[in-house]
């Protein structure tokens, strides 16, 4: 089914999705990522690996996640039927566990004895700390000092799970600085350490591997929707920071040309506000950072900007390389959603459906709210509700003046 014109064939052997991706790392790390790739290829072909992952997905993570018809939101918007793919119901409260389970099994296979990871909002940090507790591996989570402060509940969860949380003060103390620091740790502890990257970005094979582990979202969704409505959905929406939930949701639909795909980027204070957003595709240019070529927020001299978003999980100046490819090829429509639009969607979802979404997912919902009303009532639009919003209630409360 993946023919020569398929959009699902990437990456090539060099880890490229068209112009994007690649292996832009220091020589010290090069043998490690080649080794990782070899192990990943072998694991993919091993039925025992798949069986163990499937078993954990069901009994530990709680898959499949439900497909839910959001009746009141549908009525409120007055257009297409609105559905949620409920990734927030997974163990640890987001889609991040899908990738962590896959990679921890790989780390075990490779005989690694220590795990490191970066985290922004803390969702990936929590998921990593969780699988490390389960598989008895020591883990160190790098987290920007600014994020440590604004995501305290997740910091506490990681610590309780036995992880060491290392606050990173370099730069602005957010996700990109945490990633720099994790790379510095990895380059130092090459023999023992597995770097469990949380998003579909970084040097090859990470973008491919993380996508593969997250693709369960779209594959399930396709089946569930077929069962519910007997067809394909008309549109699918997901938020994009690094873009792991989005690529996991979109991948199964890339060759279904009739399914419109929307990625919601963090528009922050607005795409016209300099350094006031984190929309790398709609407001950035191609560059090379953290091992891959992709769209980046950067100045005219190629220095990386910090970006801004109300959501710590979208606050990253880059994006996974496959999204850059899908942006250029126009298969996916990426659009910026401002902080205020996300806050509005957050409240609407909470009040109408009794579901508190993560601020990240609220960006996706805000995009859905722009698209759904102009669609027909016989049409359907699905949001990947990637995470739950418990971690955000305090910061949203502050914005709304409730605290």
């Amino acid at each position, binding site marked *: 089914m993946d023919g020569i014109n398929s959009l699902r064939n990437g990456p090539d052997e060099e880890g490229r999705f068209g112009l994007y991706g690649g292996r832009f790392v*220091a020589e010290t790390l090069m043998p490690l990522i080649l080794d990782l790739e070899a192990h990943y290829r072998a694991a993919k072909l091993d039925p025992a690996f798949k069986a163990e992952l499937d078993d954990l997905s069901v009994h530990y993570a709680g898959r499949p996640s439900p497909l839910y018809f959001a009746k009141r939101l549908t009525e409120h918007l007055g257009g297409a039927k609105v559905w949620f793919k409920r990734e927030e119901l997974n163990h640890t409260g987001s889609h991040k566990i899908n990738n962590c389970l896959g990679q921890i099994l790989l780390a075990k296979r490779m005989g690694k004895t220590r795990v490191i990871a970066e985290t922004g909002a803390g969702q990936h940090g929590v998921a990593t700390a969780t699988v490390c507790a389960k598989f008895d591996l020591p883990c160190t989570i790098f987290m920007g000092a600014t994020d440590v402060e604004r995501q305290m509940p997740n910091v506490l969860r990681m610590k309780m799970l036995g992880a060491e949380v290392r606050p990173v003060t*370099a730069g602005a103390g957010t996700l990109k600085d945490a990633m*720099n620091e994790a790379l510095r740790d990895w380059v130092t502890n090459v023999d023992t350490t597995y770097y469990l990257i949380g998003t579909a970005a970084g040097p090859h094979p990470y973008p491919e591997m993380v996508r593969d582990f997250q693709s369960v979202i779209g594959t399930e969704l396709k089946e569930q929707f077929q069962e519910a409505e007997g067809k394909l959905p008309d549109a699918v929406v997901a938020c994009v920071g690094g873009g792991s939930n989005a690529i996991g949701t979109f991948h199964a639909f890339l060759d279904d040309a009739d399914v419109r795909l929307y990625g919601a980027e963090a528009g922050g204070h607005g795409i016209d506000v300099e350094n006031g957003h984190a929309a790398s595709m709609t407001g950035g240019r191609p560059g090379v950072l953290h091992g891959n070529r992709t769209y980046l927020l950067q100045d005219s001299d190629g220095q990386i900007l910090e970006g801004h978003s109300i959501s710590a999980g979208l606050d990253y100046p880059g994006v996974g390389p496959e999204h850059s490819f899908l942006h250029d090829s126009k298969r996916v429509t990426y659009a910026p959603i401002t902080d205020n639009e996300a806050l509005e969607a957050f409240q609407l979802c909470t009040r109408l459906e009794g579901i508190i979404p993560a601020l990240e997912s609220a960006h996706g919902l805000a995009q859905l709210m722009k698209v759904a009303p102009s669609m027909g009532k016989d049409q359907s639009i699905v949001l990947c509700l990637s995470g739950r919003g418990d971690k955000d209630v305090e910061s949203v409360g502050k914005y709304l003046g409730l605290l």
Partner: protein
Amino acid sequence: MTRIEKRFAEAKAANRPALVTYVMAGDPDLATSQAIMEALPQAGSDIIEFGMPFSDPMADGVAIQLSGQRALAAGMTLRGVLDMVENFRRKDETTPIVLMGYYNPIYVFGVDGFLAAAKAAGVDGLIIVDLPPEEDDELCIPALKAGLNFIRLTTPTTDDKRLPAVLKNTSGFVYYVSMTGITGAVIKSRGAVGEAVERIKGHTDLPVAVGFGIKTAEDAAEIGKHADGIVVGTVLVDAVGKSLADGKATDKTVAAVRDLVADLASGVKRARG
């Protein structure tokens, strides 16, 4: 003979390793940085590695991170780095200059335009940390075509199987990273460094310089027994940082670097004595 070849040949004739010094362009400000650069050859530096500041130096320790931040805060750009090299070349025709940094600023500048400008400014070679041989088409091959050396890092993780691929398009010299780690960390075993240098020499006729973790004249003398060159960076940019008052250069700034380089040069001279 290129400037780099000539320098290594001269050092070899004097039976000592070449001293390669790294400083960050534009740290702490343009004028002071230019003065530091110009003081290096006189103090005993054979080759200058000139850092191109980058916002996200993933392979560097705290000292070089801070140095780059100071340079960027002082307004340094890639064009500015090339201008400094051009100024230097008006006074010094012989000291090789190797630009060291990360790929993105060059990619954004435009590879062809950058290579032409670098050649015109008097740059001799490039060390780009995040361009392994797998990405040679990006900059390495165009740089060689433009007449610039492309100096590759080899590391303890580069085994004999991989080494030929790493050395294939390397020119000028080979930079052996003494450890798995970031700049400024501590070398655990000097003996292992010597063995590694011998191993690399079994694969290439190029000079092998050793860097990362060399801090004192004693380190330089010890490591320099086996290596054709010694690279020192972190202690120099650290000296710049420590000489500042309220983030600004003082009358001690240039002297601090000059004195350290003179001391390291003495270590290099007695390496094989």
